[in-house]
């Protein structure tokens, strides 16, 4: 099985700790991935808001590049990229007119596409293919009952995604438990983090993220885990603003699930990007 990897823009900039920790964890578990050569932005929600044809076209290019590279499956760690790729594949396979148009456009750029490649999120790969046992076996530094709130957010698990439950997803919880942690049950695990509204409508964004963090905290969580660069960014980087706005100290480590895996696997801080966090994530690794 050849896995090709679609990092998306965030994993190369503000979410680079996700890429670092993901690749380190993959290495530890002997999963080899190859980055898609010359990939482009998936368009996130913005391309769909402005032009559907372009949104599908540019995402289809990534699918075509992945197939050209001989990939059997695409690994897409960003929830928005993952959803965008799935959505594009759904469109082309269910609507012959769209498919024909997309193929015509791709041909102009010397690419062709079968649209058969499977799109997978790392959570799906780790839990359902690599398996919980392999993860347990790699643990050298068990997390001894650390209380974890697993935050899945929105696009990762609904409505096209098929690997986890829409209402009460479990994949991240299974991983956290395999690392020796305890997981808390909370209804807001699938609540939207407001996406880019933290920039455009800062007061609304702050309110939505405040509710999520506060609820996790009041249920005793010591750390919030995420599986999407935008969720992670929103929940981590605006804690100062949120604390000021709601006059409540909301300090909480928010990290990628792969960073916590890395800590339990005994991987060095730098390889997990822990030194690049704004929240006090490092303390957890001590």
């Amino acid at each position, binding site marked *: 099985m050849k896995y090709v990897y679609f990092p998306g*823009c965030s994993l*190369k900039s503000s*979410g680079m700790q996700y890429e670092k920790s993901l690749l380190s964890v993959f290495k530890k578990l002997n999963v080899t991935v190859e980055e898609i050569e010359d990939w482009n932005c998936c368009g996130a929600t913005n391309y769909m808001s402005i032009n559907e044809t372009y949104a599908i076209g540019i995402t289809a290019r990534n699918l075509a590049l992945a197939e050209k590279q001989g990939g059997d499956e695409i690994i897409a760690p960003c929830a928005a990229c993952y959803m965008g790729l799935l959505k594009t594949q759904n469109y082309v396979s269910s609507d012959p007119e769209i498919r024909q148009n997309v193929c015509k456009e791709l041909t102009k750029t010397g690419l062709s596409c079968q649209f058969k490649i499977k799109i997978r999120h790392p959570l799906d790969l780790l839990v359902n293919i690599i398996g919980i046992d392999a993860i347990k076996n790699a643990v050298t530094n068990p997390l001894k009952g650390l209380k974890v709130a697993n935050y899945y957010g929105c696009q990762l698990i609904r*409505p096209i995604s098929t690997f986890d439950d829409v209402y009460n997803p479990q994949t991240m919880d299974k991983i956290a438990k395999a690392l020796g942690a305890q997981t808390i049950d909370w209804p807001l695990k699938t609540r939207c983090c407001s*996406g880019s509204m933290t*920039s455009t409508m800062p007061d609304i964004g702050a309110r939505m993220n405040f509710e999520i963090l506060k609820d996790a905290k009041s249920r005793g969580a010591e750390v919030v885990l995420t599986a999407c660069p935008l969720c992670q960014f929103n929940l981590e980087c605006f804690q*100062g603003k949120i604390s000021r706005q709601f006059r409540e100290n909301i300090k909480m480590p928010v990290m990628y699930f792969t960073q916590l895996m890395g800590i339990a696997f005994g991987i060095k801080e730098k390889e997990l990007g822990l030194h690049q966090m704004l929240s006090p994530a490092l303390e957890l690794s001590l």
Partner: protein
Amino acid sequence: MKSNTNDLLTRGLEIKLEADLDKDFGKKIAKIAHGEKLFGCIQCGNCSAACPLSVWMDYTPRKIIAMVRAGFRDEVLSNRTIWLCASCYQCTVECPKGIKITDVMYALKREAIVNKIYPKNFPVPILAKAFFNEVKRTGRINEATLLLSYYWRYNIFKMLSYSTLGLKLFLKGRLSIFERGMKNKRDFKKLLHEEA
């Protein structure tokens, strides 16, 4: 109590004669949103109840569906509501009639952009357009240049409130001022019907 009820009934909705409605609007939106089921809406309100943004919206998702179906074209397209939708798909998951409400919201945003009747100087469409153009230009997003071009169009002074966060991220190596664009921009631009 009475005046309250009246307020609720008329808030934002001018009295409109049936002849002024755009009768084909619903069909058009259903077509571009791949959502012919739209006409099966039973107005149960599950979508609005599930939507985490509906408390800030003028028209909730349920109302939007009703208005689209009835042909309140201009009211829907020029409203801030559709831009408050964060595409979280919660409504879509909850709708008992299988209506793809999120896709309807997307279709409405596109219609508003095409017809140039989105609310002016409202930050969400400004960011969407800045994002759109950034990708067109370089093929990938660089967060620093994206935010610059967004604040440039929206309100350059607002950027100051983010400068501390920006600086922190920069010092942590998480924000780059260099573009890491793609190589084959020529082919990429063809997909956007643009000359390279």
